[in-house]
């Protein structure tokens, strides 16, 4: 052992591990200074407006409209017109395709929406990223599928649209609530006037841009912003056929009263107070996770948040101890930080309400537990009964107060059915008023079922949950012939299904790890990040033995097959490039290089005269993983001219496509995927070249860099490339030459002794 090894560091291990801040970049969202109302496909200048803020910092984000009754009426008229003049008349399959488009666009722009949702609403980015956005897209996707299958959901009942739906949604899941409301309404053929919550209008306003990209006909969705006055105006507006409301029980009641006698349809989704019932045979650590998810998810801003806890007496102590300890690990902080578990309370008013309710609980004799991470409290009742009301904050304020005044919520005493009754009875009592979603933890399936039956408060629901805005006719009654207007009879042009433009890594087509896209050639194109660069290089390295290890003859055949694949897609490529001529030249170029693959050794290798008893020869070998920055123009031929010679030599490639014309590269990826090129031999990234190129240039596992497409910035790239002595190649966007192959080859010289 060397002296150096003996001196190896033996200092004690440090114990503190504070996670470094990990904020999600917010520059992906660009907000306007002012927003109007989105009416009839355009923006209506608001008469009044207010400032919407980030609740985490109180930073003003934008000015948004406070819609007046007149403005609301204008939106309803636009919706009515869209309903009469087309939307309800187009075929259901066409409606479905619009909704599918919206789902896709939400997926493509998911990170942008997630950041905005967190900025404007205060919820942790990990929730908006992993829950709100995927679910919102999933709702559109789900209801899209229903649009032309309604007769299977409601057999013999001739489902028809109701007309114009006025929709009022809360602030706890702004975009997801929008999806809950808009997707089913549109699927059923209705048009919509939607009002997002006063404190969280921005994701709905950005959603208007999704509608533009989806080319949804004007007026089918209208978005007006404002406070409760605007909501009231929607309820009272003429020409609204149905109101859908999610929010507080108080407002729900007021709406129901207001609509009495008008014949307008109404759907209410109101607040509740849920219980966690935990029996002694529950898996305790997981039951605690259930409690924490039930009440701290989204800061407890959930209509069915589990705000009560009923625990069997024999496990009361360990459950409360485990819960307290678990609460200390919650990370409260900047909602944009990826490690934040509990973000900002949605508004000052809401915070004040929580604090007031906690104080009232304490006055009633409950004891508060406050973990070091400063939550708004866990209340444990002092008199042997207990009730947890941590983060008591959802839209139903009155319910909470009722909860606080509820005399006794005994935890179950002992096991057996009697114990179950103890647990269930108080819950049943309040279920009629407030129950929404309870959870029962315990192993025994029979008990879970029994308790579940006691708790079952809801009317049987329709099999298709949530499809709203449907007028149903009883079965078998002959339907009146429907009046068909002249407009409706007009045949709509078929709505084409569009492509989702993704990256090409390791033979698969993933979205960018970053969840980002940018708009190019009128499409949302994946905007790769450095982590996609990392993955692509890893894939290229993994594919190298296979591609480089093929015989040169085989490689040539595979490249020829690629030419075949491009030729068969030539009309698609023609649309995405300068035209047919560019495609033809591309195919011919690939064929030319395919023919080179098995001639490199002959032309570029040599046997060398040396002074000595040696047979001395030189053979070309691939240099390894090559990064290619494709030229901006021509979009197809430029990329292929740089890419194919590199492949011909047996290298694998990570290429960054033309930033302004990336679609041809993505089409090429599809041709590659259907040719016999091994997965990972070519990886294609789209995005901002100046963001990606430095990571490729400095990457120690990239062996050569083609900077043909880098204008100006190449000096920095070349400097970064020096660390592992990368080959730097600056070529032409439109050439073909064996020297372009040779640029990416290493020449190995062998001294072989000859003699006796």
């Amino acid at each position, binding site marked *: *052992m060397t002296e*150096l*090894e*003996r001196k*190896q*560091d*033996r*200092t004690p*291990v*440090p*114990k*503190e*591990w*504070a*996670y*470094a*801040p*990990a904020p999600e970049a917010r520059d992906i969202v660009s907000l306007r200074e002012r927003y109007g109302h989105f009416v009839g496909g355009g923006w209506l200048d608001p008469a009044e407006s207010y400032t919407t803020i980030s609740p985490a910092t109180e930073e003003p984000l934008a000015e948004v409209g406070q819609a007046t009754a007149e403005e609301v009426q204008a939106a309803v008229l636009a919706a009515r017109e869209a309903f009469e003049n087309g939307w309800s008349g187009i075929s259901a399959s066409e409606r479905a395709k619009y909704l599918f488009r919206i789902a896709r666009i939400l997926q493509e722009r998911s990170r942008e929406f997630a950041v905005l949702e967190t900025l404007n609403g205060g919820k942790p980015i*990990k929730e908006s990223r*992993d829950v709100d956005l995927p679910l919102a897209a999933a709702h559109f996707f789900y209801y899209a599928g229903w649009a032309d299958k309604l007769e299977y959901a409601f057999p013999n009942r001739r489902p028809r649209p109701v007309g114009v739906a006025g929709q009022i949604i809360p602030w706890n899941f702004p975009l997801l609530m929008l999806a809950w409301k808009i997707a089913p309404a549109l699927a059923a053929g209705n048009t919509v006037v939607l009002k997002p919550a006063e404190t969280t209008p921005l994701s709905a306003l950005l959603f208007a841009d999704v509608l533009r990209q989806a080319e949804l006909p004007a007026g089918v969705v209208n978005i007006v912003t404002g406070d409760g006055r605007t909501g009231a105006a929607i309820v009272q507006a003429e020409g609204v056929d149905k109101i859908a409301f999610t929010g507080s029980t108080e407002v729900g009641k007021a709406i129901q009263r207001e609509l009495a006698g008008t014949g307008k349809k109404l759907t209410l989704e109101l607040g509740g107070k849920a219980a966690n019932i935990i029996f*002694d*045979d*529950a*898996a*305790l*650590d*997981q*039951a605690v*996770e*259930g409690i924490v998810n039930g009440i701290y998810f989204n800061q407890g801003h959930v209509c069915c948040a589990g705000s009560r806890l009923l625990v069997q007496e024999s496990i009361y102590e360990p459950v409360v*101890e485990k819960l307290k300890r678990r609460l200390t*690990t919650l990370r409260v902080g900047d909602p944009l930080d*990826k*490690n934040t578990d509990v973000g900002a309370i949605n508004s000052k008013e809401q915070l004040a309400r929580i604090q007031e309710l906690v104080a009232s609980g304490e006055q009633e004799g409950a004891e508060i537990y406050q973990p070091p991470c400063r939550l708004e409290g866990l209340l444990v009742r002092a008199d042997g009964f207990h009730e947890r009301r941590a983060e008591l904050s959802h839209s139903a304020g009155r319910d909470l107060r009722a909860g606080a005044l509820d005399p006794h919520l005994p935890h179950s005493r002992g096991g057996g059915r009697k114990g179950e009754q103890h647990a269930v009875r108080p819950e049943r009592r309040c279920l009629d008023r407030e129950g929404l979603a309870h959870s029962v*933890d315990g*192993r025994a399936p029979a008990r879970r079922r029994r308790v579940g039956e006691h708790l079952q408060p809801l009317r049987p629901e329709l099999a298709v949950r949530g499809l709203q805005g449907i007028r149903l006719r009883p079965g078998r009654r002959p339907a009146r012939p429907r009046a068909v207007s002249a407009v409706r009879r007009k045949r709509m042009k078929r709505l084409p299904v569009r492509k989702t433009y993704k990256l090409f890594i390791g033979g698969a087509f993933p979205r960018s790890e970053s969840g980002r896209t940018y708009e190019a050639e009128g499409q949302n194109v994946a905007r790769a990040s450095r982590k996609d*660069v*990392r993955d692509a*290089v890893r894939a290229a390295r993994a594919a190298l033995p296979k591609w480089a290890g093929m015989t040169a003859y085989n490689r040539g055949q595979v490249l020829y097959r690629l030419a075949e694949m491009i030729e068969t897609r030539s009309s698609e490529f023609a649309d995405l490039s300068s035209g047919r001529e560019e495609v033809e030249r591309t195919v011919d170029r690939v064929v030319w290089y395919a023919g080179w693959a098995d001639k490199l050794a002959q032309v570029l290798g040599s046997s060398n005269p040396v002074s000595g008893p040696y047979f001395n020869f030189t053979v070309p070998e691939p240099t390894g993983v090559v990064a290619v920055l494709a030229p901006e123009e021509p979009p197809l031929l430029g990329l292929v001219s740089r890419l194919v010679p590199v492949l011909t030599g047996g290298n694998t490639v990570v290429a960054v496509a033309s930033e302004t014309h990336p679609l041809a590269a993505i089409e090429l990826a599809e041709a590659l995927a259907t040719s016999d090129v091994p997965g990972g031999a070519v990886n294609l990234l789209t995005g901002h070249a100046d963001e990606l190129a430095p*990571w490729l240039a*400095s*990457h*120690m*596992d990239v062996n050569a860099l083609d900077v043909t497409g880098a204008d100006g910035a190449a000096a920095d790239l070349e400097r*970064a490339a020096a*660390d*592992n002595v990368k080959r730097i190649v600056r070529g032409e966007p439109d050439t073909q030459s064996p020297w372009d192959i040779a640029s990416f080859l290493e020449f190995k010289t062998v001294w072989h002794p000859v003699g006796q």
Partner: protein
Amino acid sequence: MAKAPALPRGFELPLEPRLSRIGSVDAVALEERAASLAKRSIKREAKVFALELAVRMMDLTTLEGQDTPGKVAALASKAIRPDPSAAGVPSVAAICVYPNLVPTAVARVEGTSVKVASVATAFPSGQSPLEPKLEEVRWVVEHGADEVDMVIDRGAFLSGRYAKVYDEIVRVKEASGEAHLKVILEVAELGTYDNVRRASLLAMAAGADFIKTSTGKLPGAATLPVTLCMLEAIRDVYEETGRMIGMKPAGGIRQAKQAVQYLVQLHETLGPEWLTPDRYRLGASSLLNDVLMQLRKEKTGAYQSPDYFTVD
């Protein structure tokens, strides 16, 4: 079920009443929790901290039929000084070898902080009579092993002969003397999280200093949920007895990112007290190079290539 007093609380009872005292595991919620902890974003100095800690906690392992004294010597050098070009990178905790190679390993790490762990007790199957197992344990300890990684008798466990499993651990613990005892449950063969929890509690009650997921010889070795399940069992033992038992996930941990996920899980389940090689180990072989690459990436800002790190 003989020897009732020596069994942990609850094990002497028939199955039904035993269950509630040993507790159970809900697979769905366990896996959800493990998945959510795996999403923590550990950046910059926090990442460097985790990566260096992962090195300090590593049991650098070679357990192959083809192991030679030369390979173990190379492994020992790497264990002592993982990155020859970066003096700041600490030594690993231990090297883990087969009994035959213990003498070589001991000679190579002498005078350093690196410990020698040996597998024993008819690794990996454990399907041998007790006496030869004990003999093997005594032999490796005599030859200088600091730590013994034993396997439980899964055949006995799965056929309900818990007392046999328990007694065997007790005897191996005696035979280990001063050496630290890690008890391998081989979770892939136990089938359910409930079984993993039961086996964990049994091993801890019988005297394990560490409980360890796997031999590394089967697919489906260490996973985040199964490790979380074992950490929760350790926590329950700590709450009840004050004993701090160590944890060693092993098998299938190949990437630095995984190592960080395991440490986050440890940190948020057992707390900072367990963030030490005395109470946590990562059993791995190829993991070390990936961690070294990530450390250098944090230092230089550039993604690294395996070309610049030693081949194991």
